[in-house]
């Protein structure tokens, strides 16, 4: 499961992130790390990019990058 599989408004927890190294580093600096709650808040009119909420802030990321952020249902391992 990745962030792309969430319904609008649905919440989950980050499991792991992969993909472009720079983007990973940036997402992690913004607190996108294992166990963090994430919410899919919105999508652009044509479905891409997406708005996700991390630690109280909204961020816009592209679908292809969101696919690389895998999620889980509970905070624990």
């Amino acid at each position, binding site marked *: 499961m990745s962030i792309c599989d969430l319904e609008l408004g649905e919440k989950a927890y980050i499991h792991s992130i992969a993909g472009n190294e*720079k983007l990973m*580093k940036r997402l992690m600096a913004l*607190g996108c790390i294992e166990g963090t709650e994430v919410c899919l808040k919105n999508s652009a*009119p044509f479905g891409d990019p997406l708005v996700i909420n*991390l630690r*109280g802030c909204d961020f816009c990321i*592209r679908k292809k990058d969101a696919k690389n952020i895998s999620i889980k249902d509970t905070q624990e391992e």
Partner: protein
Amino acid sequence: MKTAALIGNPNVGKTSLFNYLTGSNQYVGNWAGVTVEKKEGFLDNKLKIVDLPGIYAMDTFSNEEMVAKKFLIDKEADFIINIVDASNLERNLYLTTQLKEYNIPIILVLNMIDVSESKGIEINYSLLSENLGVSVVPISASKIKGIEDLKKLLLGGIFLSAPTDNDFHFQNEKEAYDFISSVLLKCINKKHSDKKTSTEIIDRIVLNKILAYPLFFLILFLIFKFTFSWVGQPLAGFLSYVIDDGLIPVLNNLLSNSSPWFSSLIINGIVGGVGSVIVFLPVILSLFLGISFLEDSGYMARAAFIMDKAMRKMGLSGKAFIPLIVGFGCSVPAIMSARTLESEKDRKLTALLVPLMSCNARLPVYALFAAAFFPGNETTVVFSLYLLGILLAFTLGILFKSTIFKKDEEPFIIELPEYKAPEFKNLLAHTWDKGKGFLKKAGTLIFSISVAIWFLSSFNFSGMTDINHSILASIGNFISPIFIPLGFSSWQNSVSLLTGLMAKEVILGSMGVIYGGNLRVSLLSNFTQISAYSFLVFVLLYTPCVSVIATMKKEFGNKMAIFSVFYQLSLAWIVSFIVYRLGILLFK
């Protein structure tokens, strides 16, 4: 004098604080080697404050971060003013934990305390100060109280610098965030509320699937109206009236007794050349006021968000859409507004594509030619030129993306900040910053080029003469052969195009002088329909005016400016050639 580095995340009110601390006592420039704005200012002439770019972390490889990092490593700062958003300490303090590693005393400014209080967040300042080993100063929207405290602290120079027991070397992001969470657990009392924030409500409308695009274009339309019909252009018209009907007659009187070459230099050369650029200032200021409003209110990030998908096709991100749209007005503010883009690559690619958006100054040329050669079809002809520009920008975007700008793929991630009403003072400061830069740099260059063109058009090797026998005419004759394949090779046209480098609307002025009489009639005997269209295509695409070249040089350096000149010249030649030849093939 001591130096303080002002540092913090984007969208936390850093620039606003900088303006409050330094007032008008600031200097704007660029950091060496990168197009990252460098701002310095002074507090009471006793403390130098350097505004470092807004960043989220020190180690995620952006130009902005490298600039900040180098500044701290080089020990240029005696202490750090770290401004954070009090309503979102968790993420903001991540940067603080990284700043701690530099062992420079930190003053933590908690901004927007009022917002955080309204969200039910209570912060224990002294406990926070103790846990992080930094001085803490809260500031609220009204600012006055907090700012005075901060100034006192800064000038007094007595603040917490003792290291805490905590070790600020974290293995990874998770450790740092775990530490921040543990500190916040102690220092913050948060009443959880599920109330919808005003930002969520506005976003529901602004990002609505059906309304998003119409609203976006309505906002752009309003800014264009503001710039080109309500405020900017009328002011520009007034300014040019003052110059043409006020200043020039006065100068004519004053200079009536001086030698003709001197009065010609002053009036035709300097006032004519520099004046034609100065009159753009109101347009540029209006446009930037509108753009600053979009930026400060938080809408710009939303525009980037909804335009991203389309822009990605040409190798740019959604953010680059705004400069391209501004380009329809004037390429100068458009290239300057490319500054707001994330990466160097995006800024350069955008700047190269911006001049293909047909600017305001080219419109008079289209209008006259269309009326003369395509009566009844003026709108179609003019519209086709705009469309051609857009299509070429798109094509070249794809081309550049897969060739010269291949490497350096920047990750795309934009914060959608909370909406807020822009502060008037900040808007003005923002706008004036840009306008000042335009006046200073473009002004000096335009001044010298105006004098040069005046000289070339007024003299030949035996002395002062009329334009038909001037050096400019000889140059026109010299370059005109390259226009033979394009269908408009007279020296008059060549010279007009050459003087069009000053500003594209000058093309008409020059033609008026050179051809004399009724321009529309003389054009009919000098062009065919096909060569007229080929000429218009050339006007659309060839080298942008000196103001644009000067801006390009100022923002990106000589190499980019020269590249821009030659690539557009070749592009214009090739496309005009194709248009002319196809036209002959199809219609003759």
